[in-house]
C-alpha cells in the first residue's frame, strides 16, 4: 500500500482519496427494526460480501449519528418459498435477478454503541453550524451512549476515516496512539494511552495470534508517550533485547535497542547475561526481604502442606526478619549425644529449633526440604552487592523504564517468586508516596504512574493465587496508588473472574476455547453480540478492542511491528528502505 502510493503522483492520490470517501458515504442499507435492548436491524441494499461481521457502521437519522458494529448477518426472504425454490433454473437470468432482488435479502444486525448530534448544514445555516462547531470544540457535544433509536428507514453506511477519528481520536493528537486499522476501509483506529493505563488492562489471544507483537507496539507507544513508567517482567527475554520471530525468522527489534537511554535492562542474579548481552545492572534479592507470605504464595508450586503457615509464623516469631537466613542455615538430621549418652538433635538443627519453638519437628523438616529450591536459588543472597531494587525504583521515578529479564531462571517458581516479591515492594513504595502526596506532606510530589507488565498472567492471577498475590490487589484498586497492570495471557479463563471483571481495557486476538472467550467478555453488557465477533476473528493480526479504555468495541487489524512502525513512531518518515530506493532507480 505504502509503496504503491509512493509511485503515484499527487493528483492520483487525491482522486483516490476522494473516490474512497465517496464510496464510504454511500448507503449500504436502511433500518427496518430493532430497539435498545435488541440490536438494530438493517436491510442490506448492497451485496452481502461488501460488509463483514464487526464492520463499523454509521446510521444517519435526522440530526443524529448512531455508531455501531455489525454483529450478525441473516439471510431472509419475503416468502420462504422464494428462498426454497431455485427460481434461477426456471426463469431467464434477468427475470430471476429481478425477482431475487425483491424477494431475497440480507439483514444486518447492528449493535449501536454511541450516538452524537450532527451539526446543521454549513451552506444552509452557517451561523448555526458555527455554534455547533464551537460546542464540539469545547467538547460539549461528544459521542454519548445510545439512549434512543434511529428512525425507520434511516440510512446505514460504512464509517469513514472521519467517523473513526471522531470516536477513537485522531492519531498524533493528545494521547491518541494508532493501534491498527479498521477491517473495512483500513481507517486508523487509535487508543488513548493515558486512559489505557488508568485502569489495569489485558491483552489476550491464543498462541501465535500476535499478542507479544501487539504488546511491543503498545509498550513502544507508552515509552514514547513518556507519561508513565513501565516495569516489564520479561519471563522469556523477548521485550528488552532484539529477538528473532519464531514463525517468520525475521529480526524483531527490542525496546532496549530502540530506546537505549530510556530502557534499563535488569538481569536476575549476579553475572546474568541476556541473549549474550550484559544487562545494565543485575538484581539480587536479600534474604531479609523475603516474607512468609512470599513463600505461602508458592504453596502450589512447592507442594506445601497445611502446616506450613504455622511453621512460618513460628520462624518469624523466633528470628524476625532474618527468618529465611536462619532457617536456611539450619541442618537436618544431625544429632549429638548428651551426658547420658542419649541422642538429641544438634543445636543448629531444624528439629532442635522446632522443639524449642513448639512446632512439629516433622512439619518443620518437611518445609525445610521443600524450600531447598529457594535456598539454592542463586539470586537470593544474604547481602546483595548493590541495592538494585532501589535502583529500579529510582529508574522508574526518573522517567526510565525497566525490563527485568529472567535470563536462565525461567521456571515458574522463579517467575512467581520474583515478580510477586518485587511488585509488593514497589507497590508499597508507591502507596507510601501516594499517601504522602494526598495528605499534603511537604515536598511530596505526585508519584509517576506505573504500569507493570505481566506475562503468563494466569500463573499469578489464577483462582488459588489471586487472593495471595499483590497483582490482584493492584487490579482491584485501579489507579488509587498510581500502579496498574498490563496482563498478557493466552488462557484468560484461568484468570480469576474477579480480576478479569476489574480489567479496564481488553484487547483480544483469536481465542479457540469457548471458556476463554466467555471470560474475556466477563462483565460486559453486550457480551452475547460480541461473542460471535470474537470467535470469528482472523487467527493473525486481528484483534477486538473492548472495555473501558475504548469508547466502543471494535475489531482492528493490528499495526505491524516492523521497521515502518519504528520509523513512524520515531518520526523518521523520510528514511526509506534500500529496496524502495532501488525500485525507484529502476532495478
Amino acid at each position, binding site marked *: 500500500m505504502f509503496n504503491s502510493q509512493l509511485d503515484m503522483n499527487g493528483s492520483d492520490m487525491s482522486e483516490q482519496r476522494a473516490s474512497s470517501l465517496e464510496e464510504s458515504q454511500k448507503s449500504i442499507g436502511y433500518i427496518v427494526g430493532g430497539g435498545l435492548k435488541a440490536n438494530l436491524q438493517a436491510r442490506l441494499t448492497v451485496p452481502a460480501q461488501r460488509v463483514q461481521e464487526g464492520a463499523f457502521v454509521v446510521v444517519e437519522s435526522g440530526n443524529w449519528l448512531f455508531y455501531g458494529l455489525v454483529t450478525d448477518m441473516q439471510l431472509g426472504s*419475503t*416468502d420462504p*418459498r*422464494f428462498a426454497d425454490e431455485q*427460481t434461477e433454473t*426456471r*426463469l*431467464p437470468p*434477468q*427475470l430471476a435477478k*429481478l*425477482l431475487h*432482488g*425483491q*424477494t431475497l435479502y440480507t439483514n444486518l444486525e447492528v449493535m449501536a454503541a454511541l450516538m452524537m448530534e450532527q451539526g446543521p448544514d454549513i451552506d444552509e445555516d452557517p451561523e448555526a453550524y458555527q455554534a455547533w462547531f464551537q460546542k464540539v470544540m469545547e467538547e460539549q457535544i461528544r459521542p454519548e451512549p445510545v439512549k434512543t433509536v434511529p428512525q425507520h428507514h434511516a440510512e446505514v453506511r460504512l464509517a469513514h476515516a472521519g467517523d473513526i477519528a471522531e470516536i477513537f481520536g485522531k492519531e498524533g493528537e493528545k494521547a491518541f496512539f494508532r493501534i491498527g486499522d479498521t477491517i473495512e476501509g483500513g481507517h486508523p483506529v487509535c487508543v488513548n494511552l493515558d486512559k489505557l493505563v488508568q485502569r489495569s488492562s489485558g491483552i489476550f489471544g491464543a498462541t501465535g495470534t500476535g499478542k507479544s507483537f501487539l504488546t511491543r507496539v503498545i509498550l513502544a507507544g507508552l515509552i514514547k508517550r513518556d507519561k508513565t513508567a513501565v516495569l516489564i517482567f520479561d519471563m522469556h527475554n523477548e521485550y528488552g533485547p532484539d529477538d528473532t520471530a519464531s514463525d517468520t525468522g525475521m529480526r524483531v527489534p527490542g525496546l532496549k535497542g530502540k530506546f537505549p537511554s530510556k530502557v534499563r535492562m535488569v538481569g536476575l542474579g549476579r553475572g546474568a547475561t541476556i541473549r549474550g548481552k550484559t544487562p545494565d545492572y543485575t538484581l539480587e534479592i536479600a534474604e531479609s526481604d523475603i516474607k512468609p507470605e512470599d513463600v505461602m504464595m508458592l504453596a502450589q508450586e512447592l507442594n506445601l502442606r497445611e502446616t506450613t503457615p504455622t511453621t512460618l509464623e513460628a520462624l518469624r516469631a523466633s528470628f524476625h526478619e532474618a527468618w529465611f537466613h536462619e532457617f536456611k542455615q539450619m541442618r537436618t538430621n544431625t544429632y549429638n549425644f548428651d551426658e547420658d549418652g542419649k541422642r538429641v538433635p544438634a543445636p543448629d538443627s531444624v528439629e532442635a529449633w522446632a522443639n524449642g519453638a513448639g512446632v512439629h519437628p516433622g512439619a518443620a523438616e518437611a518445609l525445610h526440604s521443600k524450600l531447598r529450591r529457594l535456598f539454592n536459588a542463586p539470586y537470593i543472597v544474604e547481602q546483595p552487592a548493590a541495592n538494585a531494587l532501589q535502583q529500579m525504583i529510582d529508574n522508574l521515578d526518573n522517567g526510565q523504564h525497566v525490563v527485568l529479564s529472567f535470563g536462565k531462571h525461567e521456571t515458574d517458581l522463579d517467575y512467581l517468586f520474583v515478580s510477586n516479591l518485587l511488585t509488593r515492594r514497589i507497590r508499597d513504595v508507591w502507596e507510601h508516596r501516594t499517601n504522602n502526596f494526598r495528605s499534603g506532606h511537604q515536598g511530596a510530589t505526585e508519584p509517576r504512574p506505573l504500569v507493570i507488565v505481566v506475562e503468563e498472567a494466569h500463573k499469578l492471577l489464577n483462582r488459588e493465587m489471586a487472593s495471595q498475590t499483590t497483582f490482584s490487589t493492584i487490579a482491584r484498586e485501579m489507579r488509587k496508588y498510581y500502579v496498574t497492570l498490563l496482563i498478557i495471557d493466552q488462557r484468560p479463563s484461568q484468570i480469576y473472574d474477579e480480576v478479569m471483571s476489574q480489567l479496564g481495557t481488553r484487547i483480544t486476538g483469536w481465542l479457540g476455547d469457548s471458556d476463554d472467550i466467555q471470560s474475556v467478555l466477563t462483565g460486559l453488557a453486550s457480551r452475547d453480540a460480541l461473542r460471535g465477533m470474537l470467535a470469528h476473528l482472523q487467527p493473525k493480526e486481528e484483534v477486538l478492542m473492548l472495555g473501558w479504555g475504548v469508547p466502543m468495541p471494535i475489531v482492528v487489524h493490528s499495526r505491524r511491528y516492523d521497521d515502518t512502525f519504528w520509523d513512524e513512531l520515531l518520526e523518521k518518515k523520510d528514511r526509506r528502505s534500500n529496496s524502495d530506493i532501488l525500485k525507484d532507480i529502476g532495478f
Partner: protein
Amino acid sequence: MSEIEIGRLLRSSTTGFVVGCKVNQLNAPSFGAMVRVPLEAQYQVYGVIYDIHIEDDGLVRQLITAQDVPEEVLKDNRENRNVPVEIGVLALGYEHGRRIFHLLPPRPPLSLDAIFLCSPGEVASFTGEGRFGYFRHILGDQDKPIEELLAAHLRQARGAQVDAGNEAWYQQAVGELITLMRDDYQGLIKILSAVSEI
C-alpha cells in the same frame, strides 16, 4: 394520434366496456393491445383488450350443417355477419386536460362511441406515466387471464417504450409487478413464467 378505428361501443361500465366490430376491422386489434375512446375535447378513456369474442348466429349454424355451400356464400356470411365481433376492454385510466390518470374513468363511454387503437407513442406516454398504477386494475381482476394479458401487454408496451428511448421501462415494470405480487407466490410465479416467454 392513431386513427385506426376498431369498432363502436356495445355496452360499458366504469371498469370496462365491450366493443363491437366488423370482421373487416378485425385485423387491427389484438389481445393485450391498448385502445382509447375519445369522449369529448381533452377527455378520453384508455383500456386494454382482454378478450376477443365471436358469437355464432342462426345462419352460421345452418351453413355449417348444410351440404355443398358455395364458396361465395361462405365468404359473404363470414364477412357480413348479423352479430358483431365482441372485444372486451378493461379500463386502465383516462386522459383529461392532457394529464394521464391511472384511475378508473369518471364516467364510462356511451353506446356507439368510436374506439381507436392506441399508437405506439400513445402507449409509451400512457404506460410511462407515474409508477405503473394501472397494474392495479389488471391484477385486481382475478376472473381474467391476467398472466397472459400482462405478458401480451408487456411485449407490446416494451416495443413502444424502446422506440421512445426508454430501455429501462421493461425492467422497472417487471420489478413493480414483483413488488405488487411478492406476497402471492403462486400468482407471481405464474406471471413470471408467462412473462419469461416474451
